[in-house]
């Protein structure tokens, strides 16, 4: 028998087939996919003479939401043999991200990632989702990459393969024994996506499927800017009508001139939507978005958030003025920026020490809704934990500390994303028109654990405050 093997380029991670996706009657996008095999090859390793057929790798569910766990299994392997499970994803920016784990098949020739231990690779131990959260740019990639889905109407495609032996790299140059494609979605079926362009506000509103009305959320990202929809799409998939707000580094909005009124208007757009419960609208922010949320909750006489989720934020900002003004103040402390051994910028010093002067901080004693703070102890960008401690003291003094819940995660960094997202320890950032690399912090495994745990707790918090009856003490 002939073993003919033609080496070929990477597995078909560039992948196209034609289909239309219907989103609750609203045609979201016609997406074209076509399958491109870079080089056909003939692999006759498993010929007619062998007793068993080829190995099979499977992922259940094959189509899932990005925050849903999956089970990866391989069957029909030689017994007790070393194999490598590998995942690869090509981002919208055309970079490749990959992860891998080293396993041994058992006496039945199977490997179950959820049950077995990885003994090497980008993750080790029993990690059902390690092939996603431990992903990093493939060797040779550009520096400082961050993975963020811009088009949420189509899924993220991840190719999972199994290779013979314990492979540490060069996956492109080898043939896998088997591989399978899996889809990870930000939008559940039936969720509607509506572009918002009114009263000067720019954003995208996601409405869950169903009669409604639904609790609402204003979703704000941070200083990276632009319009990032993926978290709002996910929140809507969980039953919260959510608007991703564009407010920073935007071509559409003049950020420097923005005042609190912009965010109040945005909040009211959500509140006034016919499918939103007007007395159940909350704020959800990360980094600068958290700062905005805390400010609104304390100072706004116009908006009354039902609750706030603030990830990696702080409260050391004086009242009034524009966002531009806030940043001017912030940049007065540039001399406090430190560089690490890789020349990545550490900004956390700029926010320290926490001032004693209350006029230099958001008056959190005035907040009268539940607020959840989610922080990483290893946040190198923002002194979130110190800030949270100070907020607790201020609220204790004001008598509203019972509204505050603090989550703090050891060895987690600044960018606490939805679960299974790769860990971004340091990525490119535009500072005053200049590209620098900022150190966000965190160690991958604890940071990924923090992402998973915080997401669960965030939903428990939202469920309690947005879906339950108005008196939380009635729930036993």
């Amino acid at each position, binding site marked *: 028998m002939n073993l003919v093997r033609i080496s070929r380029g990477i597995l078909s991670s560039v992948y196209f087939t034609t289909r239309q996706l219907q989103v609750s009657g609203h045609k979201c996008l016609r997406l074209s996919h076509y399958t491109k095999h870079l080089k056909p090859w003939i692999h006759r390793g498993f010929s007619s003479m062998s007793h068993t057929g080829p190995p099979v790798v499977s992922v*259940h569910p094959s189509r899932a939401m990005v925050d849903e766990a999956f089970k990866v299994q391989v069957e029909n392997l030689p017994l007790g043999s070393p194999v490598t499970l590998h995942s690869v994803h090509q981002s919208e920016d055309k970079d490749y991200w990959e992860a891998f784990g080293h396993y041994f098949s058992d006496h039945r020739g199977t490997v179950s990632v959820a049950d077995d231990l990885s003994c090497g690779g980008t993750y080790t131990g029993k990690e059902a989702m390690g092939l996603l959260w431990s992903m990093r740019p493939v060797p040779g990639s550009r520096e400082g990459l961050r993975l963020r889905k811009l088009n949420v109407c189509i899924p993220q495609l991840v190719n999972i393969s199994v290779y013979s032996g314990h492979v540490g790299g060069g996956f492109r140059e080898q043939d896998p024994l088997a591989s399978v494609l899996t889809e990870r979605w930000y939008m559940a*079926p039936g969720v509607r996506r509506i572009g918002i362009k009114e009263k000067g506000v720019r954003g995208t509103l996601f409405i869950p499927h169903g009669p409604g009305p639904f609790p609402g959320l204003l979703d704000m990202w941070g200083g990276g800017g632009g319009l990032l929809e993926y978290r709002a799409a996910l929140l809507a998939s969980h039953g919260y009508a959510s608007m991703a707000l564009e407010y920073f580094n935007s071509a559409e909005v003049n950020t420097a001139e923005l005042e609190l009124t912009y965010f109040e208007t945005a909040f009211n757009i959500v509140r006034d939507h016919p499918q939103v419960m007007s007395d159940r609208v909350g704020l959800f922010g990360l980094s600068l978005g958290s700062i905005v949320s805390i400010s609104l909750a304390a100072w706004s006489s116009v908006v009354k958030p039902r609750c706030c989720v603030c990830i990696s934020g702080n409260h050391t900002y004086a009242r009034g003025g524009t966002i531009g003004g806030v940043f001017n103040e912030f940049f007065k402390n540039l001399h406090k920026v430190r560089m690490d051994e890789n020349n990545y910028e550490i900004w956390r010093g700029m926010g320290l020490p926490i001032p004693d002067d209350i006029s230099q901080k958001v008056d959190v004693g005035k907040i009268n809704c539940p607020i959840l703070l989610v922080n990483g102890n290893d946040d190198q960008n923002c002194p979130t934990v110190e800030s949270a401690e100070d907020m607790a003291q201020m609220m204790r003094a004001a008598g509203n500390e019972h509204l505050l819940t603090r989550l703090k995660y050891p060895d987690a960094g600044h960018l606490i994303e939805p679960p299974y997202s790769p860990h971004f320890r340091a990525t490119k950032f535009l500072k005053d028109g200049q590209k620098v690399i900022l150190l966000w912090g965190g160690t991958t495994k604890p940071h990924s654990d923090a992402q998973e745990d915080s997401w669960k707790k965030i939903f428990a918090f939202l469920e309690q405050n947005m879906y339950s009856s108005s008196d939380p003490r009635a729930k036993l």
Partner: protein
Amino acid sequence: MDMKQHCVKLSVQPSRGLVDEKFTVLVQNLLPGFQLTIHALHQCEDGHSWEAFAHYTADATSIVNVSQDPSLGGTYSGVEPMGLLWSLRPVPGSKTGLRWRKMNVQTPMGVTISVYQGHQTEGFLDQVLLASVVVERWYMAPGVRRVPITEGRLTATLFLPSGPGPFPGLLDLWGGGGKLVEYRAALLASHGIASLALDYLTAKITRETGKMVDNDYFETAYRVLEQHPQILGSRIAMLGLSFGASVTLRMAVYSQVVKLRCAVCISGSHVQPIDGPVEQINALFNKNIDKIHLDKDNQSILRDMLLPIPTDPSLKVDVGRLQCPLLLVVGEDDQNWPTYESAIDMREMMERAGNSHLLTVLSYKNTGHLIEPPFTPFVRASSFRTVTNPPFTMMVLWGGELVAHSLAQEDAWRKTLVFLRENLYGGMKHGALFSNL
């Protein structure tokens, strides 16, 4: 109960699944004793609406879990995790004789699952809707590739599983209604088997020449699989339903070209004139048209056309000569073909010949002719358009009873996949490949 309206939470996991995967329907935040109706609505490709519904009463846990709690009435009753799909039927006022089939497998089947207050049986659009989600059911797993095949003058579609391969192959044949029906082949490819759906009654070549295809057409289809660079030429199976089963048996036993690793025959028979072209099978039916009789609802029962099972060996495939494992799936209430009687006769022939160790028969009570992939809505009778020239339409009785037939579809599919896996992949006994079924 305004607060109730805001609180009821409905979730279906997974929200996007393969058509043969189970889902979990969960309703939360209910008050104990609360009565609700869970309703499923689907609009098929022809624009007809299908619905199913079930009545539940929340207990002290304030949760209704369709996989664990009993339906108190509706289109199904008792604990039925997938009842909302298999009990789908045309909404009141629909045309009669409808049959549910997905012809475009590249888009999912969309089902809207809703929760209504109270135990409702009709007029759902006017009821108090508490929550609703959309669920997608796919025939094609991610990465499965659909490849139209026209070489060798075939009218066919090849579905290749996700991944580099190579994969075992399968030739998939439907029955006397003709057309190029892709969904089962797409689903099999989603389970790792490169499958070729073949139109052999209404193929382009027949439409152009007016002549029915013959043995060489199927042998060409087999060769397409055998020679494909991503298919293992020595691991090819054939699966046929109804008329397709007749062709499968004929090829498995008599063809010099087709060498099958195994064969599956659903709702089929070995009764056919074995000399002469495939066309003769049709001729046999035409000769026995007077044996069709109507039931009290004017539905046509065709099973007697092939009865009694002949003793003349030239009138049935000599299954004693079969050299590969054969799985027969039989509905004991099949009103369209005499599959039960045929299976008995086939077993006798194989026992006499000494190859009955190759035979496995799955026989299901109260199950009809159209044994489809799991959770496919059941129809006891439907409008059938013949492929004759000129064609005519009649209401055909397929047989079967809703619950038994639906259970049979689930069981038969699971066992068919195990059979195919064992014979095509060899050695795999447990596992994840089909664990969610």
